């Protein structure tokens, strides 16, 4: 029976834990930061590379490698930006960290800043997260009062400022280049890449954008024996624990910290307590709404990056949305597609027109105007967004459409079969 492995949630799961600076320090906090200040930044980056940690924001890109792309000696400041925009439907793990253990994330962020030579880090947090913003604000104030932020944290002489920057409601600002435009005070529209943020990011300076959870792993990874321990939590190339946002028709939804070698079945039936109301499982959206849907037959698989990629879906932000046999998947897909139509920034043609059009086609089914022809068209319109857009939102909208049509064609047919 699967159970949690507590690395990031070590403090949170401790009922006596106080999330204040004092409480965090008592639990051993900011110890690793002190150690890190004694290392060379390159050594920090190398350690992170060795740990094999992959970004938890959705793309799973190796963090150490990303940091090593940051050019040095450009004469411009370097930036580290924490991506706390958490808006991918199904995902609610970064909020958990920021609300309940803000200092863990902040220590990780400070380690990251040191590693990439950033003296002023920004935390781009979605504007609706009022409680998390308050929690972070308090924590940052504590750090300034304590001298952990400012001109000389822990006597390191490494001047470091952190600023919490509130977004204002736009899923697309989770995409890193849109995030940067938004942070600069513009409409959050993704940029053409290359240049990548490492070369030209915030205000044109070298920038690394990292997810909150990714950064929260740093105090562990840089701690004593951290690399080996971190790697031991999962198969090769899938190291560490990850925070799984479990939602939908399970008995015990919640955010759980799991190793990367846990079977999805165990997550649904063990951790999640099985399907509510004695119903049967129909399918799972495994990695945030942008991932391809899986049927009940497919869930006997290890829940990690590589195993999910093998079956043509993805781990994404580790957000599992479970749905039972009574679920109307056409409704579900309609809701997903409506989300992308609402959140498309609209600058590029296939996404602006395709998300809206596909939503209209799905609505036709719901209104009793479906047909074989329209099902094919839906698949085609979805496919026409795949790989043709400027940013990955087009793919994110296309993958659910194509996978739902492929895996649940009968559910669509039901809507027009008897006519």
């Amino acid at each position, binding site marked *: 029976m699967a159970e949690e492995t507590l690395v990031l949630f070590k403090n949170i799961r401790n009922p006596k834990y106080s999330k204040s600076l004092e409480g965090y320090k008592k639990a051993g906090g900011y110890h690793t930061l002190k150690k890190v200040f004694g290392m060379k930044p390159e050594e920090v980056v190398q350690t992170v590379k060795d740990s094999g940690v992959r970004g938890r924001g959705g793309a799973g890109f190796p963090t150490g490698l990303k940091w090593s792309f940051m050019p040095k000696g450009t004469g411009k400041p370097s930036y580290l930006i924490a991506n706390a925009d958490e808006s991918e439907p199904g995902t609610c793990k970064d909020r958990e960290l920021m609300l309940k253990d803000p200092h863990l994330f902040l220590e990780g962020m400070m380690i990251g800043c040191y590693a990439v030579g950033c003296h002023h880090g920004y935390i781009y947090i979605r504007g609706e997260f009022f409680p998390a913003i308050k929690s972070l604000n308090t924590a940052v104030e504590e750090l300034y009062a304590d001298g952990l932020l400012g001109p000389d944290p822990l006597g390191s002489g490494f001047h470091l400022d952190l600023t919490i920057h509130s977004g204002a409601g736009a899923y697309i600002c989770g995409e890193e280049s849109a995030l940067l435009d938004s942070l600069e005070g513009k409409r959050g529209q993704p940029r053409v890449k290359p240049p990548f943020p490492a070369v030209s990011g915030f205000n044109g300076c070298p920038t690394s954008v990292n997810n909150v959870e990714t950064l929260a792993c740093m105090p562990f990874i840089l701690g004593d024996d951290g690399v080996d321990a971190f790697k031991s939590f999962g198969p090769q190339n899938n190291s560490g624990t990850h925070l799984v946002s479990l939602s939908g028709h399970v008995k015990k939804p919640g955010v759980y910290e799991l190793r990367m070698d846990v079977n999805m079945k165990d997550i649904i039936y063990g951790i999640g307590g099985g399907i509510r109301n004695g119903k049967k499982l129909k399918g799972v959206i495994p990695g945030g709404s942008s991932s391809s849907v899986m049927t009940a037959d497919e869930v006997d698989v290890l829940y990690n990056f590589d195993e999910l990629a093998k079956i043509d879906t993805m781990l994404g932000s580790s957000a599992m949305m479970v749905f039972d046999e009574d679920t109307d998947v056409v409704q579900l897909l309609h809701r997903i597609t409506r989300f992308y139509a609402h959140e498309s920034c*609209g*600058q590029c043609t296939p996404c602006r027109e395709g998300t809206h059009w596909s939503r209209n086609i799905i609505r036709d089914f719901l209104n009793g105007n479906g047909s074989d022809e329209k099902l094919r068209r839906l698949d085609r319109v979805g496919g026409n967004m795949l790989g043709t857009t400027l940013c990955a939102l087009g793919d994110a909208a296309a993958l659910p459409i194509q996978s739902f049509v492929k895996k649940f064609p009968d559910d669509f047919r039901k809507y027009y079969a008897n006519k």
Partner: protein
Amino acid sequence: MPVFHIDDEPVEFHPGEKILSAALRNGKKIPHYCYHPGMSIVATCRICVVDIVDLGNGRPAPKLQTACSVDAAEGMKIETMNQKVEEGRKLVNEFLLINHPLDCPICDQSGECTLQDYSFEYGSGKSEMDYSKRVYGWRDIGTFVSLERNRCIQCSRCDRFTREITGTNEFGMFNRGHELTVDTYTDRPMTNKFQGNMADICPVGAITEKEFRFKRRVWKLKKNRSICTGCSTGCNVTIEHDRNEVFRLKPHENQNVNKWWMCDEGRLTYQIMNERKTRINRPLGRVGQNLQDISWEEAYRAIAERISEMEPTGNEVIALTDTHASNEELFLIKKLLKDGFLSDNVFCPLPKWEQRESEFFINTLITTDKTPNRAGALALKIKGDPGNVEVKNTIDGELKVVIVLGNPFETEHEIQQKIKPAQLVVHIGAYHNCWSEIADVVLPGQYYSEKKVTFTNKMQHVQATDIVVQALRRSRPEWQIIVELAQSLGHKYSFSNINQVFAEMAGETKAFSGISFDQIGDQGMKLTQTFKDTGMKLVKAPA
């Protein structure tokens, strides 16, 4: 220069240049909507997809790439016409057309609409979108252009134009996703002086020139290269016309002069080209109070007879010209006075003028010198000074012969009063003005859209005009009139075309030496010897 291959043909590129830019410079066709060489790259329309079959390292790109945003690389091989690419374009066009009103029959852009062109070439021909389309109303958004947003394809060129080119920021993109629109906000009309360019760069008929609305179908228009003579910048233009009527001026790219742009005031000069009421349409001779029709021969004969009767000395002859006269005309009038009367008395107004300085290039197009050939007059050493002091001193004595070219000193009553009593006033020009009123002989010239001549702009580039519309039947180009006048006075001038005049001018004037008329071509040529114009003052463009 490094080389890459487009459809198996070698194409040279500048290091760092994008595939699309190199392709277009080399005359290759790749469809594009959002890309504009003068503005930032957004790569959002997605129509410019190409298949990179070799990235230069032996490996292909994993999927179609947008040519506007990918750097060309040595050894790269791209295909622009294979099936994958055609399908890529087709799907983009299909997406664009689902919300397009398809109102080509009533659209002014019809015939020069990239959407229409590409849809015809690459589109699937049918749209499966049977839902209601976005609907917005037609709106008057500025002094010069209007907006029909239903036709907009959200390429953001107009938005980038007011941000990056004029810096006036009156236009923007609002909302997002399917509701993304371009507009001025809350009905504030635009005020920038370059709005016509927005109609030019809009790839569809969403932004159109009000002046041109519903006037003519575009494909009926004939086009000629020329320059705008609205000011001393001399923006390169195409003059578009039909049945001897000019409909509009469009800027023509010239990186040394106007890049891709021109100002709205310049565009409006098309109206003068169609002006008939004030035109001088035949030679006229004064009989008592009135001007009467005469023939060219009678006119020349009359002038020659009067002059031989008077036997004027150099001091008693003067020519006044404006700086709308071409280089050749200025050269010839000067030559005529020298050869015929040993006189150097050719004057033009040379007031001080202001040149705008600005971080936005386009603002520098505007100058206060509204004549096209001040620099030509300076290069040819036509006399003049800001206060017209010298000309006033010269006309203090008794004048026998005055030749006036165009409409110089139009606000200088003192000069006009002193010229009036002169024994013979000859006015050569295209339009009636204060000079034709007092002239004894009036000779009908031609407007610059009717003749081939050259002007020297404020940057001292020599640029040529072309014959665009047919001149009035009994008019003649001014250069020819001066030549014929000289001949009737007994001089052996044997210029039969403008090239010959130019050649002689280049032979005798240092500034033009070494330049031939044919060399000027599309892009103009810098004067061989340039000089500083002391009448110019740099001023900051208003923010």
